[in-house]
């Protein structure tokens, strides 16, 4: 069974519509870095104009921007398909949070540290839970079925595609919505800077959404894997090789979308991919999407989908050895 992509939505540092974001990638016009006040490093933020249409939704009035990204991307993914109220009520949602609502979390904790434990804001705290954006997406679209929030990095997002496949195999309903989102704050930007994990790659924010349908054709997401945990870079390399070697030969990719970061784990990732697929072409997404954990991995999957659909490549690999100690890969055809 493959997962056919029947709708996509993304909020990226280089645009919201597929046309504008893809033309920036093809014309190699990278996102413009910014260093907001209080940040120790430049980042790739989202232009607030991209999400203006959702910021007026009453339910989102008090929510952090991660929920705005998630709702906007989800709405775009659903825009091309007309589902009845019942079909929406039975549509499962898989939401992928990277760092979650880190802006409100930092602000809430800052109040506690500076003004005492009893001074936290009841408006901020509920929005700090990882699944708050999923709840807002469900409310915005009228979803009432299962809504699961997974936490993780790029590899967790790719592994979640495997979970989506399992979910659709097990259910009568054959569609599911998957949304990943990330927001920036000075605290997570500082953490990435100090870890040294974003070498050659700027911390970013945004969202990606896929409306998926199970399919017996060999088009769409044709290979998924549950991934592995790793302890060291060499361990990650050997496990990524194991995953890549399990890709059936008929799905061997001719291109790979990679962040092209220069961190040790990213260099290892590309070396492992070349070891299994020596002739593969690497396409860099890092200058356009930056690093936004699950969200940038989802954006890579969406970019792969558009490149395959437009005939640029036959089969595209998206792989990730992520900060959370997980390694995973997927192939679109």
């Amino acid at each position: 069974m493959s997962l056919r992509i029947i709708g996509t939505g993304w909020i990226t540092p280089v645009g919201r519509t597929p046309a504008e974001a893809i033309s920036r990638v093809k014309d190699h016009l990278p996102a413009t870095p910014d260093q907001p006040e209080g940040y120790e490093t430049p980042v790739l933020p989202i232009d607030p104009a991209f999400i203006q249409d959702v910021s007026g939704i009453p339910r989102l009035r008090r929510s952090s921007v991660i929920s705005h990204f998630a709702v906007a991307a989800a709405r775009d993914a659903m825009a091309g398909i007309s589902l009845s109220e019942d079909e929406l009520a039975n549509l499962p949602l898989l939401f992928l949070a990277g760092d979650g609502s880190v802006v409100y979390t930092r602000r809430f904790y800052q109040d506690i540290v500076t003004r005492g434990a009893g001074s936290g804001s009841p408006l901020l705290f509920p929005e700090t839970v990882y699944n708050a954006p999923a709840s807002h997406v469900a409310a915005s679209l009228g979803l009432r079925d299962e809504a699961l929030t997974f936490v993780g990095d790029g590899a967790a997002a790719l592994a979640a595609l495997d979970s989506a496949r399992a979910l659709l195999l097990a259910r009568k309903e054959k569609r599911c919505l998957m949304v990943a989102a990330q927001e920036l704050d000075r605290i997570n930007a500082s953490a990435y800077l100090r870890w040294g994990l974003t070498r050659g790659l700027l911390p970013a924010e945004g969202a990606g959404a896929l409306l998926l349908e199970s399919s017996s054709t060999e088009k769409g997401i044709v290979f998924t894997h549950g991934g592995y945990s790793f302890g060291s870079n060499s361990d990650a390399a050997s496990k990524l090789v194991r995953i890549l070697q399990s890709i059936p030969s008929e799905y061997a990719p001719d291109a790979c979308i990679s962040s092209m970061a220069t961190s040790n784990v990213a260099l290892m990732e590309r070396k492992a991919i070349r070891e299994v697929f020596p002739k593969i072409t690497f396409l860099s997404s890092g200058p356009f999407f930056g690093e936004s954990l699950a969200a940038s991995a989802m954006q890579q999957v969406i970019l792969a989908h558009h490149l395959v659909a437009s005939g640029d490549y036959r089969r595209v690999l998206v792989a990730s050895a992520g900060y959370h100690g997980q390694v995973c890969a997927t192939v679109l055809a």
Partner: protein
Amino acid sequence: MSSSVSIPVSIASAGCVSPLGLGMEETSSSLHAGTSGIGPVRLFPVDGCQCSTAGQIDGRLGEAAVSITSRSRRWTRAAQMVLVAMEEALRGCPGFRPDVVVIGTTSGGMSLGEEFFRALSSGQRSDHAARRVRNYVPHQPVIQALETFGCDAPVRIISNACASGSNALGIGRQLIRDGMATHVLAGGYDAIAELVFAGFDCLKASTPELCRPFDAQRSGLALGEGAAMFCLQPGPSELQITGYGSAIDTHHLTQPHPSGRGPEQAMVAALRDAQLSSDSIDYVNAHGTGTPLNDSSEGRAILNVCPSAPTSSTKGMTGHALGAAGAIEAAFSVAALKSQFLPPNINFRQGDPDLPLNIVANTSRSARLRHVLSNSFGFGGSNASIILSLT
């Protein structure tokens, strides 16, 4: 809606640490005795909060973790909880090697995030805090524990607020039932953190008094902490997870719909999944936080689905362990099924006239139990129910 049951999923073993004790045996004994694990908060200052108590794991946790691996001396309390619960579960099922690990949590390594924020703000020890904050990600306590046992299975972290632990068990069961995995380690963990404590306090969800689930005078919850892990595998056995249901109620981010429609949908889905009628449920282990709104909404759902089933919330004894609650309470349900007793709903004085439930008030009771339904609900309108059965 799930497809029909294909492969039975058995609980081969379980491990648990909670304010009721370290290990299943101690937990079961405290649960039977109706012991309260709630006491003054020791881990951080709570001046200015209306609530000053919580269910905390006692000082033996560090020792128990270090007896498994000395490396755990430098781990967070959350990671030590995961290690101790995981060791007990794996010890109970020799040779068990998970294909996948599914864990529910809400706070992950929150204490490290707090430490990092304080270090950045003060400009002191920020390099040290930056190194440590790498372990902030919620996968890390699980990966650290798995490495101790030489396991590299992928880790899925589910964070569906306070339903996470039940979701993790339900997903673990689905993976085996649908032939996607053969051995799943599933569970949940959460350690008390200053940010979360202050959060529930500012919402006025925490009580300055005793936590009294389902009581007419209930005034709020007490927070708790802990971890529980289960080795799940295919095939019939004495103890099985037979049903799982999940639903979202988008009425409000923190308040359930008063009708209890979300909890009811999850409970009904779990019964359907288990192919059981509501009168087969011998005991409902309720979410029962002790807040007026939760207990009212859940009580209505229980009255609509299995009105006569003996019901108790164990959170009066343990506090609310958030993302771990569903897993810990599944461990309590296992203890109840194995020892054939109904765990008590302590601190109960007077039933709520609007909720004529069959509450197991204050003391445990012997009972013939075959099917137990355990509820977990959370912020964002997350609702999950699982059914555990003695076959």
